[in-house]
């Protein structure tokens, strides 16, 4: 059976809560411990809030992943917002242009196993994160 992608549109702060709850649900169903579920939900919360704060709207796509019997979760946060001109700066701890204390992206990176960010000014930003169940 092909793993199903769950897509949550992110427009308001309520969607941030929906996305992280859905992420926890999927993580719970795919072998993640309660602690890892919390880390995943928190990371989703940060990237979803980034969409609301900087892009206005976007989406979070969640999928269970399976690599040689290793279970995991894939989180993709996409937006067509203004983009980030200096990713290295955005990934620096304590940096923030809006109001999130700057913990957002570097924090989410620390909570997950894999983290990639692609951004083009004027086009948008995609954050791809994975975590593997232990």
């Amino acid at each position, binding site marked *: 059976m092909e793993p199903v992608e769950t897509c949550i549109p992110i427009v*308001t*702060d*309520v969607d*941030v*809560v929906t996305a*992280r*709850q859905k992420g*926890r649900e999927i993580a719970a169903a795919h072998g993640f411990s*309660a*602690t890892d*579920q*919390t*880390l995943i*939900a*928190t990371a989703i*919360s*940060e990237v979803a*809030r980034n969409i609301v704060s900087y892009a206005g709207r976007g989406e979070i796509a969640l999928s269970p992943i399976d690599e040689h019997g290793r279970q995991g979760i894939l989180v993709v946060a996409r937006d067509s917002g203004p983009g980030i001109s200096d990713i290295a700066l955005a990934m620096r*701890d304590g940096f923030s242009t809006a109001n*999130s*204390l700057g*913990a*957002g992206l*570097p*924090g*989410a990176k*620390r*909570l997950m196993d894999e983290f990639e960010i692609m951004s083009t000014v004027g086009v948008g930003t995609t954050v791809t994160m994975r975590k593997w169940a232990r």
Partner: protein
Amino acid sequence: MPVPILKQGEVLIASIQAALSDRDLAALRDELADRVGRFRIRGVVVDVTALDVLDSFASRTIRSIAYITKLRGADTVVVGIQPDVAFAMVQLGLTLDGVVTALDLEEGLEALRLIRRDALGTG
């Protein structure tokens, strides 16, 4: 969903029942700041036992609740941060600097009592 706020003598107890949106959290902050003055409150307990995530925004808002109520003459104790939530906060690099925390509501009320006693210089 608004957070129920109970008044017990000079203490307000904000008992968060379910996941809160950013707006709900900001509303709680404003409501507490208002009620501290309106009811001449000395202490506030914010019970976050029901929260399964405390991300950067939630941590920042809880910290501002503690600072704002302090400026209004009341001490705030945050109680009930779950172990997994605490772990995630540490990983995120979030701290609640200068905010008094306690394990649960009972310990929180005791902490407020001790703060008040020290402030009055009686014992």
